[in-house]
């Protein structure tokens, strides 16, 4: 009826989701390891240095990239900076009220951030402008416009697609000051991480949960992998425990799904 719609899910509906999944089916007819349709567009915000819009089913996320400059972090003085910020804006779901970011959007930003950083999506050591003083700063802003579940995978995909589309303004030093040179070049991308989020529902593992399935889930595991098959970030979230076997199974499902998802950005524009 309105599968994947955000909002209140009655206990009755949760039971039906769990029962269906225990018997190997899902309410929207997907198999346990099927994603919804994934669509990726880039260049949607002309004013940004890079941007993308990702749809996974009804979930919709926009990513905007801005490249600026600033002082490096104290613990990594020779390296550039990448900061992820995520907002689940109130028009995205009937559940969300206006206000400062809650733990869900903070977790979202941090999990995406870790995946990008650990995969070495850019070469952080080549981002100095004035040694130890000024470095390039990459701001990744994620904006969830419709929340129909699996925000982490959609957001990672949006962030990576936007970074791959980014044209970097080149800064230079004139009279000791950092100024835009007026020249630009494509941002050099070193790897293409994608995340695969699994939910455990009714004892079974599924990929790409809808928001109703997220309401029904016992626990969740996100695994981010680079194109070489290395795992670059993991996040377990949700109240219930997992056995080591379940974790291994989740990683192998994630590894088998990742290339399919990556093809949406590598093959795309």
């Amino acid at each position, binding site marked *: 009826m309105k599968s994947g719609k955000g909002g209140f899910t009655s206990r009755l509906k949760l039971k039906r989701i769990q029962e269906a999944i225990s018997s190997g089916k899902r309410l929207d007819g997907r198999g346990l390891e099927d994603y919804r349709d994934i669509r990726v567009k880039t260049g949607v915000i002309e004013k940004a240095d890079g941007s993308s819009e990702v749809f996974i089913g009804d979930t919709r996320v926009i990513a905007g990239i801005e490249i*600026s400059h600033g002082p490096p972090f104290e613990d990594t003085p020779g390296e550039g900076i990448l900061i992820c910020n995520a907002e689940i804006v109130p028009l995205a779901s009937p559940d969300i009220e206006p206000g400062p970011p809650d733990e869900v959007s903070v977790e979202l930003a941090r999990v995406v951030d870790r995946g990008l950083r650990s995969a070495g999506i850019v070469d952080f050591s080549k981002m100095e402008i004035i040694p130890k003083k000024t470095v390039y700063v990459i701001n990744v802003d994620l904006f969830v416009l419709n929340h129909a579940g699996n925000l982490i995978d959609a957001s990672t995909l949006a962030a990576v697609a936007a970074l791959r589309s980014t044209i970097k303004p080149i800064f230079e030093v004139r009279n000791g000051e950092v100024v835009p040179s007026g020249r630009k070049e494509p941002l050099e991308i070193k790897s293409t991480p994608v995340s695969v989020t699994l939910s455990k529902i009714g004892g079974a593992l599924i990929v790409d949960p809808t928001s109703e399935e997220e309401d029904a889930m016992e626990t969740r595991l996100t695994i981010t992998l680079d194109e070489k098959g290395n795992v670059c970030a993991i996040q377990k979230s949700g109240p219930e425990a997992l056995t080591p076997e379940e974790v291994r199974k989740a990683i192998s499902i994630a590894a088998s799904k990742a290339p399919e998802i990556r093809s949406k950005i590598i093959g795309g524009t």
Partner: protein
Amino acid sequence: MSSNEEWRRVDGRRWDELREIRIESGVLPNADGSAYIEMGRNKIIVGVYGPREMHPKHLARPHTGILRCRYHMAPFSTEPRRSPAPSRRDMEITMVMRYALEPAIFLERYPRSTIDVYAEVLQADGGTRCASITAAAVALADAGIPLKDLVAACSAGKYEGRIVLDLNDHEDKYGEADLPLAYMPNLGSITLLQMDGLLSPEELDRCINLAIEGCRKIYEVQREALKRKYEAKKEVEGN
């Protein structure tokens, strides 16, 4: 000064020309009503929820519904990037947006309830409050909320000594005056009126008339957007 007929603005428009405008209704699956507007390089999406129970409940009013608005800009909507926290400007626009839309809604029919209107600016290019109000009116109609009229909004102002319609970001920043106005075209009522700059009473009058003309044109685009979604649907249902 060359004649107004020949003079062209920085973006090539005549003095009384709107930017290109495109509206689409029903763009967000979760929302009860929604609309997307592009006006020049402005890109704004509006979602409407309700009427629904007011949360927190103590804000509910026993004899009337409440319209709650939020105008907010995405961090990537401007150059340079802006902080994601709502600014004082966002808060003021949130308020005037509510006042601009409230006269169109029969709020007394929804005691204890709220209608929530959320506008998110994805790209800003001058005139975002007007474009947000224009899109919000379409989103309210899309949500099936009875309205006294649609509300269309548009600015007029003064740039390089001339009265112009629908200021873009550059004209807004470097012009002499900017007057955003919202208008209910069937009822002939002004629901938003602000002005920033310096105008003589005669210029002010011309600006108001020009902005109203602009709103009438925008109203046609609003109608087209709703017609595309609903008149076609009605025919399909009929057959």
